[in-house]
């Protein structure tokens, strides 16, 4: 399938280039964020009745993982309200550039570049996720805290350093955005090479230099592109396109990914396994342990979480690639094995997260309307749904749907694993151990979803 260039349609292009529509959506998102923070701080502390927890962790999370990321990639990052106050203060403007702005514009420290800080931020937030998930006040404080950190980072460091290097969700979305059928790319890199001012990176009167610190001409994947549309506005040569493409197109890159990106892929697979087991699995004792932050049982849970996500899953994967190297009679280094094969796990990881999120939303979606009907717990019944009982949806059919999603992810990943093995001249034999790893992960998920 040839990519379809959406920006070739004048109407679509004009909507995307104009700042008004994007700002309108951003303001709506800011309003939503403020409502969520206010409800979290003032509303009922009952997690299942407060919009802070219900809208963020049930509605938003499901929409992100089941729809937005798989089909639109990083589009959410283009309207995410968390970095907007900082960005607006940094720029001194809401729309087009107006003067220097207020930020100090320092470059992000070289040592902290890459995904390592994001990986750590994700793991730390994940360790505390159950209390955050269930306690509206903590959710509100986390979101408000992220906004404040983003403001501070934006005022000291250049552009969207917060999103690029710190946001715990950003790295997550970026990794799986590679599977999405939507991309921002330059039409012809040679045009960029000849364009001396590189306004897409340096900025112009029409827009800002890439907030995500990416030179669009070098974009080969969605990992670091925040779909903010600035390059579309600043390119005077009409050389930037937003395209529909086959899903997973980024994963066919032949170059190895950075080791931090490979590690992220493995940490996220491990996290999906733990989350599915804890939140959808049969053990209420485990859920209680995950919620009892600071207790000995929580420490055991945290140790288990770290063991699985940081040691066990990456270790098993490393062992699989090393075994593949042996049976495929290849001279791949351990590091390169990770860098080559880890991207192939993106479809399986995305499927695991999508399935887990679908299971979670089916179980808990009936909390959404009651929470909206009485958003700050004052006894209102705005939608007539305040007393709607909790009704988990799905049943057996849903279990099989979750299993089917994971199996599609397995098949999709397996195809990529084979392609990588063949690229490395290791043949099918080299792919077999990595397939074994993928089967193991899939079996674990199926056990939770179906058994």
């Amino acid at each position: 399938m040839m990519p379809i260039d959406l920006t070739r349609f004048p109407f679509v292009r004009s909507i995307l280039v104009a700042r008004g529509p994007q700002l309108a959506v951003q303001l709506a998102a800011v309003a939503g964020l403020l409502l969520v923070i206010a409800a979290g701080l003032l509303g009922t502390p009952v997690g299942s009745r407060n919009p802070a927890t219900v809208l963020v962790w049930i509605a938003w999370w499901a929409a992100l993982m089941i729809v937005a990321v798989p089909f639109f990639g990083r589009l959410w990052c283009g309207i995410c309200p968390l970095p907007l106050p900082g960005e607006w203060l940094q720029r001194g403007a809401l729309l087009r550039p107006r003067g220097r702005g207020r930020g100090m514009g320092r470059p992000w420290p070289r040592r902290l570049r890459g995904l390592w800080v994001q990986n750590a931020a994700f793991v730390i937030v994940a360790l505390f996720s159950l209390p955050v998930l269930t306690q509206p006040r903590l959710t509100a404080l986390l979101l408000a805290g992220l906004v404040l950190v983003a403001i501070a980072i934006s005022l000291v460091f250049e552009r969207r350093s917060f999103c690029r290097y710190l946001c715990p969700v950003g790295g997550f979305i970026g990794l799986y955005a590679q599977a999405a059928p939507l991309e921002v790319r330059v039409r012809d890199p040679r045009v960029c090479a000849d364009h001396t001012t590189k306004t897409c990176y340096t900025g112009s009167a029409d827009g800002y230099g890439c907030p995500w610190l990416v030179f669009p001409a070098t974009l080969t994947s969605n990992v670091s592109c925040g779909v903010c549309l600035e390059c579309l506005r600043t390119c005077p040569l009409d050389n930037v396109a937003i395209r529909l493409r086959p899903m997973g197109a980024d994963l066919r890159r032949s170059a190895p990914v950075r080791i931090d990106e490979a590690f992220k892929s493995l940490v996220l697979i491990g996290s999906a396994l733990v989350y599915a087991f804890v939140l959808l699995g049969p053990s209420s004792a485990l859920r209680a342990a995950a919620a009892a932050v600071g207790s000995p049982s929580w420490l055991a849970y945290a140790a288990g979480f770290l063991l699985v996500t940081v040691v066990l899953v990456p270790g098993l994967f490393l062992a699989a690639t090393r075994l593949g190297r042996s049976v495929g009679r290849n001279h791949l280094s351990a590091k390169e094995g990770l860098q080559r094969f880890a991207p192939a796990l993106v479809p399986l990881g995305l499927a695991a997260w999508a399935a887990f999120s679908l299971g979670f939303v089916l179980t808990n979606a009936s909390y959404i309307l009651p929470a909206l009907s009485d958003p700050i717990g004052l006894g209102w019944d705005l939608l007539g749904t305040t007393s709607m009982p909790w009704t988990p949806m799905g049943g057996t059919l849903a279990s099989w749907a979750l299993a089917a999603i994971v199996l599609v992810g397995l098949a999709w990943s397996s195809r990529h694993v084979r392609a990588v093995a063949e690229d490395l001249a290791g043949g099918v034999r080299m792919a077999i151990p990595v397939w074994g790893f993928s089967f193991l992960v899939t079996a674990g998920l199926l056990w939770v979803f179906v058994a």
Partner: protein
Amino acid sequence: MLRTSSEHLARIALALVTLAVPLAVAVAWWGAHRSTSAVTIHGRVSEAGGWLPGTLRAVVGTPLRLRLVSDDVVHGFAVGRSDAAPLDIPPGQVVETTLTFDQPGTYTFYCTRWCGPDHWRMRGVIEVSGGQPAAPEIVEPLYESLGIDIDAPHPASALPSVRPSAERGESLGIEMPEGFRSRQDFIARPPAETWQSLRLDSSTRGLSDSQVWDLVAYQWRSTTTDAALQEGQALFAQNCAACHGESGGGDGVIALSTPVPVSFGILEGTALSVPQGIALSVPEGIADAVPAAAATHLAGEQPPSPADFTDPSTMLGASSALLQGKILRGGMGTGMPYWGPILTEAQLWALTDYLWTFQFGETS
């Protein structure tokens, strides 16, 4: 010019959004708490604070509007010694009710749902003032007027070899001798003592020991009513079964799942200070009655398990007056709550009568 004005418009829109949302929430919040005369009471499991506020004030004849909100699990709300049906309070929802008092005094409100191991601590008081105080009704508890020490052990002085049966006792067709007929006769004396007295009475000369025990069981049954037993059963299921077990064996779910969390703590005036900074107001007089046995818990001793009503060796040594006293006052060095401010006199006796079904009732 055009650019500046669109930027200004955008800023106005942003200002509207950032001001409007918090302002709307704040106004709604303020309005809801100001425009109503209702008192909002938050309910949390005792470990997290119980009822907040725990003390309310009302005036005789003036309706007291309450907005009840549970901040965690399903709680129930009821006022002690009243006939009003308990209200369920689902978490996060607002339940409104109105109370009107016709007598001044101190009323206890309490949770009627087993919300947690310390459920019984979830109590509060309503101080009602004004109006003409009713003539002070000082009723000495029966156990006190009979001089019964409800904290002392009460082993049975005689035990049956088979489970006594009221039905068999009735079928004997023997008229109970004088001194064993009235309800007062039954509730004042432990069954084991009654059996010993009956055994010596000439009217039971031709009966076996077991048959005399059947007569004792019949004495209980003939001095209570079906309605009282039904009410007692319902009260037991609602208030006692979680610790004492549905079958009365002292093996309720809370007793099994956690050591009885008795920690009366230090008595300070009329408040029982308990761990985690929770303080429950206790009606005057009750705190004084909490036995010295509570001090054993301060020393870290594990309190005994809930009483086993199926055990004849202790039950048959207890009179109804003693059992009623234990329910009324609670304590005894155990986690037993005090039910005096909650249950009416009739309810206390109905519950006491029901306890004998674990000794004398039909096992089927």
